[in-house]
């Protein structure tokens, strides 16, 4: 944890960073106990940078985003520790009214379900205009104009007509464009997109991704993309943070993580992507399921599913099942939370990185 933070800060100047999340922990206290949905997450996004949080459902990536926005219901949620530095302020200690000015004004968010994320009884223009009125203190007429312009910016045809329509009169792709228009209407410094294309048709997915990228490049807003889709990651971002069971398991640039995954979990994720070359074969899967949040394994959280986990033979040596590894820095901003990258296990690492052996075992 500390190692990746140190290396990241060494690599980039502090004022070059728009969002700096440090040791973030979000717990949910429910009837059966406490779920540690996010358990010690650190990452940074540079100004105009693009970072993806990747992981399976329930790994804590959405909760991380909602915690940054302070949209966690408390109770049952609790932001147990951490700092979220945004533009020189820790969002977690900001008074409520200042936090409201940040939400929508400086950090905007797009959600997964465009069908349910828009209010069914308000017109599209009302909903976009509301954000503009709140943050830029415009009058009704000006807000209306701004809404039309925002729709035009995201490529909605006939914006003057669309602005007066209700969400149910628009298609799914159109609604997601409306969400993006709403998010970008106040020129935020950071855009959080939580699975923005998951609920859309494949062709529309592509259009929406291109739109997000195009706008990101044009306006220079930073992008925090949350997704489980590695295809989306490859096309959209520069840096990747892989999460598993509320923790970061691997970080690096998009090329590094996708082409040379270091953590067994990332490796498993990548090998489970269907591709033309694998036609006719059984899809490779990561065996087992995400651990029960009430009965987390004591050691590495991925150990029960990990094909590379080993029992120790040497007294005093850490074991995958009993000891949880740190997020170990691998230099150049890369890090992996796996005992394989501990200097004591270089022999095992050599076996792991031999391409054929690893692939066979994984299968």
């Amino acid at each position: 944890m500390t190692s990746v933070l140190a290396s990241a800060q060494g690599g980039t100047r502090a004022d070059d960073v728009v969002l700096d999340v440090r040791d973030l922990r979000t717990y949910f206290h429910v009837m059966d106990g406490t779920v540690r949905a996010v358990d010690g997450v650190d990452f940074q996004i540079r100004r105009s940078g693009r970072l993806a949080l990747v992981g399976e459902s329930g790994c804590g990536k959405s909760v991380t985003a909602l915690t940054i926005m302070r949209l966690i219901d408390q109770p049952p949620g609790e932001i147990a520790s951490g700092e979220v530095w945004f533009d020189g302020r820790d969002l977690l200690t900001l008074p409520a009214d200042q936090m409201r000015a940040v939400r929508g004004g400086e950090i905007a968010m797009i959600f997964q379900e465009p069908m349910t994320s828009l209010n069914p009884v308000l017109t599209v223009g009302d909903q976009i205009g509301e954000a503009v009125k709140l943050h830029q203190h415009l009058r009704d007429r000006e807000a209306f104009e701004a809404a039309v312009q925002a729709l035009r910016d995201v490529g909605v045809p006939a914006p003057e007509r669309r602005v007066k329509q209700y969400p149910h009169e628009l298609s799914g792709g159109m609604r997601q464009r409306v969400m993006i228009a709403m998010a970008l209407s106040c020129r935020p410094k950071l855009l959080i997109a939580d699975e923005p294309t998951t609920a859309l048709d494949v062709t529309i997915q592509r259009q929406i991704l291109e739109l997000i990228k195009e706008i990101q490049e044009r306006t220079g807003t930073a992008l925090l993309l949350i997704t489980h889709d590695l295809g989306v990651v490859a096309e959209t971002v520069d840096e990747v943070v892989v999460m598993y069971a509320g923790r970061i398991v691997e970080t690096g640039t998009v090329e590094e993580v996708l082409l040379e995954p270091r953590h067994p979990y990332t490796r498993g994720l990548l090998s489970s992507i269907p591709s033309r070359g694998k036609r006719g074969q059984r899809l490779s899967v990561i065996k087992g399921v995400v651990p029960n949040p009430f009965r987390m394994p004591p050691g590495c959280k991925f150990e029960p599913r990990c094909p590379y986990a080993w029992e120790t033979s040497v007294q005093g040596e850490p074991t995958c099942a009993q000891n949880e590894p740190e997020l170990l820095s691998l230099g150049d901003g890369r890090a992996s939370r796996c005992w394989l990258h501990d200097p004591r296990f270089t022999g095992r690492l050599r076996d792991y990185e031999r391409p054929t052996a690893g692939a066979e075992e994984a299968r």
Partner: protein
Amino acid sequence: MIRYIVRRLLEAIPVVILTSVLIYGILLIAPGGPTARFAQNPRITGEQIAAFKHRWGLDQPIPIQYCRWAGICNPDGEGLGIFISNKGLPNILPEALGGGDNGMLHGDFGFSIVDGRPVTSVISERVVPTLILAGTAWLLWVVIAFLTGVYAAVRRYGLFDSALTVFNYVGFSLPTFWLGIMLIAVFASQLRIFPASGMWDTRTVPAFGTDRYWTLLGEDPGYVLTDLLRHLVLPVITLIVVSIAGDSRFVRSSMLDALNQDYVRTARAKGVPEWRVVTKHALRNALLPVVTNLGLEIPFLFTGAIATETIFSWPGMGRAFIQATNNYDYPVLMGILVITAIIVISANLLADILYAVVDPRISYG
């Protein structure tokens, strides 16, 4: 929109007709009948009963009885002539166009068997007291159920929410008649804060609806209205406790549902202040099912009024209904049932139209 309303109005017509047939049919099947009150009277002979039946048209075939009551048939006609009015035109037409002057279609609900007065005047003098009682109750009921429900949802699991939950469970299980009697026992008999029955103080105020009543209302409105309000308190409470208990629960869950929707999260993510998230984004959506429900519950005011008006001797339609039933006064009974049915159907219609107004997803097609 206008077309939608007109269409719904036209659709309501067959419903009203069907309801009137039903009312007629059910009263026909029910034991008793207009002559039942003579059965125990030894001084009334069979001939006299037959004469009574003939005078009231009860010796006619049932469809003709219904048609006369409805105003399709002319009671003076013979054979096929029953469909022709005395002016020689179809009897069903409005009177001004040469139709008949009998039956509900022409505003004639017949005469009370008991005192011979027209049913319309019996009902009309009872409608206003019922509307005063039911209207006040409905207004309070909606406002209280709404405010408490929304507040409980926003402060979920708070002290108020828990207290309301207890009230709701208790209130919902109270029988109306029992609650009314208990209120009289405590607040009228023991504490003597509110009057136990009636609509006005008989010692100081003339009967409601008379000229002297209106004169006094003009001279001393403060006194007359205070007197009316004092008489309203207990029956209104009796009428609405059960309804509030049910509906504030309903509003609460509808509001909770809305507050958990994705678009509420979107609104918060936009930086909308919390009170506006509640009043603008959640409330309008929470209103949709509530509006329908409030319309559908209007009938309850009238059925509830039957018990409440009887307990509190409120001179309204509910009490008139009970009196008519006890006296075998069939014309009044049927008149009240038809008027109530029309009010209920109109209330449903209103709820439908309101629903279309508040929800843009409803098409008027």
